[in-house]
């Protein structure tokens, strides 16, 4: 499971970087989504996977064999929500910019005026 996830993280990072280097703003945003998901999985994976175990003690107080760590899940949940908010705002800006300039190509946009 760890190996599979590690490969997935690698693939997502690669795809994300590739998308970031495109000229289209929309592809850039997709790249950000890939990278943020890759990072979320990385956090999840780095903290260690303990499949099929509860995150708490038995009611009798005796510990089960191994406890799962609930913290990385909480972290990833927070990060997912933040990433979602940012992507929504990026899409809104992209939409406004497209309405103004009718282009999605970063090269077509004039550089911000140099002096």
């Amino acid at each position, binding site marked *: 499971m760890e190996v599979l996830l590690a490969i997935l993280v690698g693939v997502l990072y690669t795809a994300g970087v590739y998308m970031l280097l495109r000229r289209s703003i929309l592809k850039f945003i997709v790249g*950000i989504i890939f990278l*943020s998901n890759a990072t979320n999985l990385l956090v999840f994976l780095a903290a260690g996977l303990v499949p099929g175990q509860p995150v708490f003690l038995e009611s009798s107080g005796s510990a089960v064999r191994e406890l799962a760590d609930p913290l990385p899940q909480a972290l990833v949940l927070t990060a997912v929500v*933040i990433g979602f908010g940012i992507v929504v*705002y990026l899409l809104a800006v992209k939409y406004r*910019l497209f309405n103004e300039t009718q282009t999605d190509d970063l090269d077509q946009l004039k550089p911000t005026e140099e*002096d």
Partner: protein
Amino acid sequence: MTLAVLPILLPVLMMIIHLLIRKESVAAISGITGSILLLVSSGFIAREVLGGNYLSLVAGGWDAPFGISIVIDPMSALFLVISSVIVLSISIFALRLPERKTRLTRFYFFFFALILGINGAFITGDIFNLYVWFEVMLLSSFVLITLGFSKDQMRAGIKYMALNLIGSLFFLAGIGLLYGKTGTLNMAHLAEILMHDDQSILINSSAMLFFLAFGIKAAVFPLYFWLPASYHTPDITVTSLFAGILTKVGVYAMIRFFTLFFVQDPLFWHNLLFVIAGFTMLAGGMAAISRYETRKILSYHIISQIGYMIMGLAIFTPLGVAGAIFFTLHNMLAKTNAFVVSGLINRMRGSYSLKEVGGLFRESPLLATLFIIPAFALAGIPPLSGFFAKFILIKAGFQGGHYWITGIAVLTGLMTLYSMIKIWNEAFLKKVPEPRIKQETRSLSFVDILPSVILGTATLLMGVFAASMVDLSLQAGDALLDPVHYIESVLSK
């Protein structure tokens, strides 16, 4: 101990209030009142903390390494006070936002959201919580930088977002790897674990991720390109605020992390920091010399001054770190003030380009005085704060035997002086250029100059009471290099 939550509680309250307020005049009063309250509360916090009692608080009733802790040590307290002074002056400066384009109620909402993120970053004692505050700061700064939704602003906004988002992802990856290795997120607990750890190679991967993340935020040498590409497009109110505080939060985080727990491999890290600091100073300084637009000159200047702060951190003696802190505090005030004055020049003449303005000395000696204070402070002329800040850094550099970086610091000081003299000559001394297209000569009212007066007074006070400021910075620097007290104040509850 509830005092410690005020820096984040007050901005939240102000955000809620500004959601409800509809009238601009009421918003103006409440915004400024909120900023004054913030300044007063951070003053009380500073008095408490600098007296020797660290304020610490654990959220949610969980004990220290498990709950999210809030810790205010001398460095946090000093940063809180200075940023509150800037917040107060910008809240007044915002009264002159272009009325039809931006509503004050909306501005104040995102303004206080930004302050929430900044103050949270200054006081938190938990690395994941720091990430959350960075995101709060980042998202509200996205909104502020594109506030008018003009084409230029959105273009610049996308550049700003691109690098800053990548920085955040580096930060999150670093947190994940560090948590995987140590099993804790609490800064004090991390410091305790890593202090007795000699597997520096394993920690270095996370340290590098953090370094890249904070380097992007702080705009250090190879990562600074987003800053000059975006800082000249938003309204000058927003630019002044960003210039004063945002990059310095990155510097704050870098100082915190590289004194508290990434201290296992000093040979590698300090040399890297020296190289970065030198290039940052030179690149920013030289780029500033070549520009003719006040906001661009000052933007490149932010970068060159960040180099000094990193240099102080890299020297890594109590004097060096104290110098870095003093320099950062001085720079926050003076840089904001310089941008505010450039906004005032624009208000009088309708242009930011040095080629189109002139003759301001004759017309408004008061404005000239207001410009002289931050300009001379930035250049490091003796009675002002910048002189003492640079003096400490250069002294620390010589004491540590780092002659190269000290030489670069002196050279950059000269470049700063040159850029400031250029603005002075062009905007104030030169005659009004002949083919004036727009005949704008608006005069300034009391409200216009008040923000600059507040910031200038603060800069002057820092210069006059330099001895006590140096003592406070030394206290903060000592506390950073010997974090026993910090760790105890969090973990021994």
